[in-house]
C-alpha cells in the first residue's frame, strides 16, 4: 500500500479517514427501508409462481379482496390494464458499440405482473395490500390461480433446441442477443498455429445475496401530486424514470430515495416490477404502502447471475505464446434480461485480460430460459470469462510443461507498452485502451507474497513426496471501471459557509459519503467536517446514474470536480471584488479565500456566500450571477482499467477432497486510493464473495426448472470460519484519464477466486492430470480424482 506513485495532495485524499457512515449503523439508528413506518401505512405481499413456465388461465382475487384487513388486491389482468411493462432496455447501448460490435438484440419487456403466462418460479401473478404483512400473506392463501403447466426451458442449451417452445412468443426466438466481435484475423488465425486446445468451461449460477433483501415504501401526496419512493436500490434515478414513465407523471413529481441500503453488489442495480407497483399502489390507494422482500422471495425473485457456458479454443506456439483465441458462449439470462446484453458485452471485452493476443474472435448468445432473470452481479461477465481464459492459460502451460506463471509472463503486456490499444471496442462505444499499469509486476508481487515461485514449487515437491497435495493457483484480470455515460453532482456553499455536496451515486456500504467528503474537502481546502454529503436522493441531484459497475469513485469525483470548478470561479470573482484585488493573487485557505502572502486579507466562505446572494447589498462584480451553486455532469471519456494478479496456495485432502486454502493473495491496482482502508475492505469483501462462488454458493435448478436452493440453509454464504488468510497488496498507478488518477474497485475482488481455486486444485492434482473446468469446485469432484474416477473432465 505504500509504494506506487501516490499523488501527494497534502489533504484528505489518500488518507484512511474514518467513515462518517458508521455511527448510525453502530448505534442501531440507521434507517433501512424496512425500518420506515408512516402514518396509515399498509403492507403489500405478492403471490408468486410455483411453476417455471405456465399459461395463466385465471387468477381470482375476489376472496382475498373480501378478507377483513385487506385494502386492495390485484391480478395480472388488473395490473396490465393499468400499467405498461418495464422497457427491456433499461440500459441503452451507445451507437459506437453497435457500430463496432456485431449485435442482434431483442430484449423482451417485463410485465409488472403478467396475465398471459408465468416464466419463472417466483414471478408474481397477484398482489394483496393489507393492514399488516401478516394479513396480506393470509390473503395470498385465498388466491387460487388456474395455471396450465408448459414445457419448461430448464437451461440455455435446451432453450436453443430446434423443437423448444418459445418463452416470449412475439420475439420468435429464445435468444435475446447475439453478439460477435473479432480482432486481427480472428478464428482464421487458428489454421496456422502450432498447438491448439479446445475445452468447455461452465460457470454456474449464483447471486449477489445482500444481507438486506429488497424493499420499497411509497407515499403519494394528493395536494402536490407528488410521489416519494424509498427503495433499496443502487439506481434511484432509474427508479424515478421508470416510475414516472409507468404512472404518467413528470419525473420532477417523483422523488426516489435510497436510504441506508444493506448491500447490493449489482443485485439492486436495476428497476424491478415492485419499485413501480408499490409506487402505483400508494397513489391508487391513497395511503403509504410498504413491501419488504423476504429471503425466500429474494432468492426466487431478485436477479441471479453468472450461469455461462464457454467453448474456447486457444492456439499457441512452442514457447507458450498465445497466437489465437476463440470462444463461443451462452449466457442463461433467465426469463428476462433487465440489463440487456451488458454482462455478455463485458465478457467479450474482457477475455484477453492482461495479455497481448493478436487474433481473437468470439460470439455469444444471451438465451431466454425459465430461470430467474440474470443481471450483473459483482464482476458482471468478468468472473465468467476470466474462468474460461485463465483455465485455458493453465492448460497451455500443462501442455507444454511450462510453469503457469511463466506462460503468463510471456504473454503479458509489458508496462512500457502502456497505454495499450487492445483492438476491441468497450461497451461505451469507445476503442479499448488500457490506460496504465504494470501487469507483470503485480504477478511477481503476488508470487512473492506466497514465498516466491521457486520456494512454492519446492514445497509442493516436498509435500508430494509425503503424499500431500499442494497447489498454486493463479488468476489475472483487467477490469474496465468508471464507465459512463455520466454522473451528476451538485455543489453549493451554504449561507453558513459549509460545503454541500450531492451526488447521483447510491452507495450500499462503500462509504461514499466519506470519500466524496474527502474529495470536496481537498478541493475547497476545508476541514472534512465542513463538508456535508447527500447521496441517493433524486431530490438533490437533477440527473444521476447510480452505483453500479465499479464507477462511483471515478464518475462522482469527476462530477463533484466539475461542479466545484464552476463554483470556484464565482468564489474567486466575488472574493476579488470583496478584497479589491486581482483574482490571480487569491488562493483558497482557511475555509475561505485569501490574498497570497497576506495573512490578514481573507474572506470566509460564509462571507462570500452572503455576498453572492441575490438582492440588495450583494457584492457580486458585474456579470456574476447570484448564488454559489452548480450542478454538473461528468461524462468520462471512457473507462479506466484496474487490474489484479491473484495467487493462492491450497492443500487438497486425499480422503475427502477437502480444499484447504492456506493463503489467498490479490495484488490490485485501482490507481490512486482515496481511502486506503475502505479500498482494502472493498477488495477483501469481494474476494470472499468470489470464494463463496468458487466453493459454496449455488442456485441449483432441477431439469424441470425448479429452484432447489430457496433458503440460506441451502444457499451457502461464506461464514467467518470459511475465510482463509487474505493478503491484499495495492499498487497505485494513477489513471491518466481523470483529475485524481482514480480507477474503480468495487467489483474486482470477486472476479478471480473461482478460477484461482480451480487452477490451484488442478495444480495440486497434477499427478492425476486433473482438470476442473466448471464451478463450483466441489470436494466430491476433487475426491473422485483420488478414487480414479473423475466425474468432471
Amino acid at each position, binding site marked *: 500500500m505504500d509504494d506506487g506513485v501516490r499523488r501527494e495532495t497534502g489533504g484528505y485524499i489518500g488518507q484512511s479517514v474514518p467513515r462518517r*457512515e458508521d455511527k448510525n*449503523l453502530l448505534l442501531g439508528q440507521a434507517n433501512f427501508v424496512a425500518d420506515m413506518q408512516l402514518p396509515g401505512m399498509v403492507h403489500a405481499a405478492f403471490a408468486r409462481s410455483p411453476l417455471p413456465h405456465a399459461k395463466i388461465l385465471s387468477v381470482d382475487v375476489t376472496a382475498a379482496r373480501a378478507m377483513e384487513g385487506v385494502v386492495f388486491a390485484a391480478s395480472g389482468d388488473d395490473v396490465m390494464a393499468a400499467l405498461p411493462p418495464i422497457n427491456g432496455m433499461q440500459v441503452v447501448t451507445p451507437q459506437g458499440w453497435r457500430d463496432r460490435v456485431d449485435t442482434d438484440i431483442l430484449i423482451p419487456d417485463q410485465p409488472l405482473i403478467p396475465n398471459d403466462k408465468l416464466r419463472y418460479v417466483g414471478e408474481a401473478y397477484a398482489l394483496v395490500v393489507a393492514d399488516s404483512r401478516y394479513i396480506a400473506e393470509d390473503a395470498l392463501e385465498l388466491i387460487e390461480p388456474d395455471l396450465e403447466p408448459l414445457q419448461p426451458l430448464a437451461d440455455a442449451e435446451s432453450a436453443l433446441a430446434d423443437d423448444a417452445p418459445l418463452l416470449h412468443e412475439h420475439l420468435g426466438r429464445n435468444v435475446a442477443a447475439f453478439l460477435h466481435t473479432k480482432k486481427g484475423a480472428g478464428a482464421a488465425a487458428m489454421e496456422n498455429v502450432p498447438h491448439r486446445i479446445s475445452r468447455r468451461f461452465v460457470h454456474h449460477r449464483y447471486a449477489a445475496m445482500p444481507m438486506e433483501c429488497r424493499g420499497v415504501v411509497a407515499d403519494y401526496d394528493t395536494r402536490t401530486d407528488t410521489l416519494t419512493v424509498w427503495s433499496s436500490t443502487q439506481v434511484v434515478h432509474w427508479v424515478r424514470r421508470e416510475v414516472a414513465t409507468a404512472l404518467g407523471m413528470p419525473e420532477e413529481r417523483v422523488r426516489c430515495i435510497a436510504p441506508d441500503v444493506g448491500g447490493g453488489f449489482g443485485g439492486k442495480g436495476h428497476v424491478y416490477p415492485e419499485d413501480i407497483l408499490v409506487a402505483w399502489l400508494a397513489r391508487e390507494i391513497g395511503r403509504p404502502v410498504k413491501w419488504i422482500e*423476504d429471503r425466500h422471495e429474494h432468492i426466487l425473485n431478485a436477479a441471479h447471475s453468472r450461469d455461462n457456458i464457454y467453448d474456447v479454443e486457444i492456439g499457441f506456439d512452442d514457447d507458450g505464446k498465445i497466437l489465437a483465441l476463440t470462444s463461443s458462449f451462452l449466457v442463461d439470462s433467465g426469463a428476462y434480461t433487465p440489463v440487456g446484453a451488458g454482462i455478455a458485452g463485458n465478457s467479450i471485452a474482457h477475455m484477453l485480460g492482461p495479455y497481448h493476443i493478436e487474433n481473437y474472435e468470439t460470439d455469444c448468445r444471451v438465451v431466454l430460459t425459465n430461470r430467474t432473470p440474470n443481471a450483473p452481479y459483482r464482476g458482471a461477465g468478468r468472473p465468467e470469462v476470466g474462468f474460461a481464459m485463465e483455465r485455458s492459460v493453465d492448460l497451455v502451460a500443462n501442455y507444454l510443461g511450462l510453469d503457469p506463471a511463466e506462460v503468463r509472463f510471456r504473454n503479458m503486456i509489458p508496462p512500457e507498452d502502456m497505454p495499450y490499444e487492445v483492438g476491441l471496442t468497450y461497451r461505451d462505444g469507445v476503442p479499448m485502451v488500457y490506460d496504465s499499469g504494470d501487469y507483470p509486476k503485480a504477478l511477481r508481487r503476488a508470487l512473492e507474497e506466497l514465498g516466491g515461485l521457486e520456494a512454492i514449487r519446492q514445497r509442493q515437491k516436498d509435500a508430494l513426496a509425503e503424499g500431500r497435495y499442494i497447489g498454486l493457483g493463479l488468476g489475472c484480470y483487467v477490469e474496465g471501471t468508471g464507465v459512463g455515460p455520466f454522473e451528476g453532482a451538485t455543489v453549493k456553499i451554504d449561507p453558513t459557509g459549509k460545503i454541500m455536496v450531492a451526488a447521483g451515486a447510491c452507495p450500499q456500504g462503500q462509504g461514499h459519503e466519506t470519500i466524496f467528503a474527502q474529495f470536496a474537502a481537498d478541493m475547497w481546502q476545508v476541514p472534512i467536517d465542513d463538508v456535508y454529503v447527500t447521496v441517493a436522493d433524486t431530490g438533490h441531484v437533477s440527473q444521476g446514474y447510480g452505483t453500479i459497475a465499479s464507477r462511483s469513485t471515478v464518475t462522482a469525483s469527476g462530477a463533484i470536480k466539475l461542479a466545484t470548478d464552476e463554483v470556484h470561479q464565482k468564489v474567486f470573482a466575488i472574493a476579488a471584488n470583496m478584497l479589491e484585488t486581482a483574482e490571480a493573487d487569491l488562493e483558497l485557505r482557511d475555509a475561505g479565500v485569501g490574498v497570497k502572502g497576506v495573512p490578514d486579507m481573507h474572506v470566509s466562505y460564509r462571507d462570500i456566500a452572503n455576498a453572492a446572494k441575490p438582492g440588495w447589498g450583494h457584492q457580486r462584480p458585474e456579470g456574476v450571477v447570484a448564488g454559489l451553486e452548480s450542478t454538473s455532469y461528468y461524462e468520462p471519456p471512457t473507462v479506466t482499467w484496474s487490474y489484479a494478479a491473484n495467487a493462492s496456495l491450497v492443500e487438497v485432502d486425499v480422503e475427502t477432497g477437502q480444499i484447504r486454502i492456506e493463503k489467498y493473495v490479490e495484488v490490485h491496482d485501482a490507481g490512486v486510493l482515496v481511502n486506503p482502508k475502505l479500498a482494502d475492505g472493498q477488495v477483501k469483501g469481494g474476494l470472499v464473495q468470489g470464494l463463496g462462488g468458487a466453493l459454496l454458493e449455488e442456485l441449483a435448478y432441477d431439469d424441470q426448472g425448479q429452484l432447489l436452493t430457496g433458503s440460506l440453509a441451502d444457499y451457502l454464504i461464506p461464514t467467518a470460519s470459511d475465510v482463509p488468510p*487474505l493478503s491484499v497488496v495495492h499498487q497505485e498507478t494513477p489513471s491518466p484519464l481523470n483529475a485524481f488518477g482514480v480507477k474503480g474497485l468495487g467489483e474486482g475482488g470477486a472476479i478471480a477466486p473461482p478460477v484461482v481455486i480451480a487452477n490451484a486444485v488442478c495444480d495440486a492434482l497434477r499427478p492425476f492430470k486433473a482438470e476442473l473446468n466448471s464451478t463450483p469446485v466441489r470436494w466430491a469432484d476433487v475426491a473422485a480424482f483420488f478414487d480414479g474416477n473423475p466425474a468432471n473432465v
Partner: protein
Amino acid sequence: MTDTRKITVTVNGERLTGAAEPRMLLVDFLRDELRRTGTHVGCEHGVCGACTVIIDGDAARSCLMFAVQADGAEISTIEGLATNGEMHPLQKLFSEHHALQCGFCTPGMLMTAMDLVHNSKDHSPEAIRIGMSAALCRCTGYVGIIEAVTEYARQVHGDAAVADRDSGEHSHG
C-alpha cells in the same frame, strides 16, 4: 388470527408493553410494535443472524421465537450498547477496524460478539471464528469483524485469552 395478547418485556432496561398475536415473531414485535428497529431481519429462518438479540443473558435469533414466548424476558439489543450516546468499546472497535460496510448485519454481529466474548470461555482465534460464524456478513469478508472482536476479547480477558492455541498449524481453512 386477530386475538392479541399483552406482552411485557424489558428491553435494554426499559419495561415495555405491547400487543401481539400469538403468531407474531419476536423480531417483528420488537421492530413494529415497540419500534426498536435496530434489530434487523435478514432471512426469517434462523441462518443469517441479523436478528440476534440477547434474551435473559444468551444470544438468540429473534426471528425463530414468537413474541409470546418472550413475555417477561429481559432483552438486550443494539440500541442498548451505547451509554448516553457514548459508543460501547466494541462499537468503537468495529469502526476502527472497518468491520462494517453496509451495516445491515452489524446489529446481529455486535450482539453475537457480546455473547461470545462475555459468555464463552474460549477466545482463541479458532473459537472466535467459529463463534462469529453464527452471523453472516456479505460485505466485509469478516476481516475487520474478526480483528475487532479479537481486540475486544483481549480488552476484556487479556492477551493470553486470545492467543493462538494451535501448534503452529494454520488454524482455519
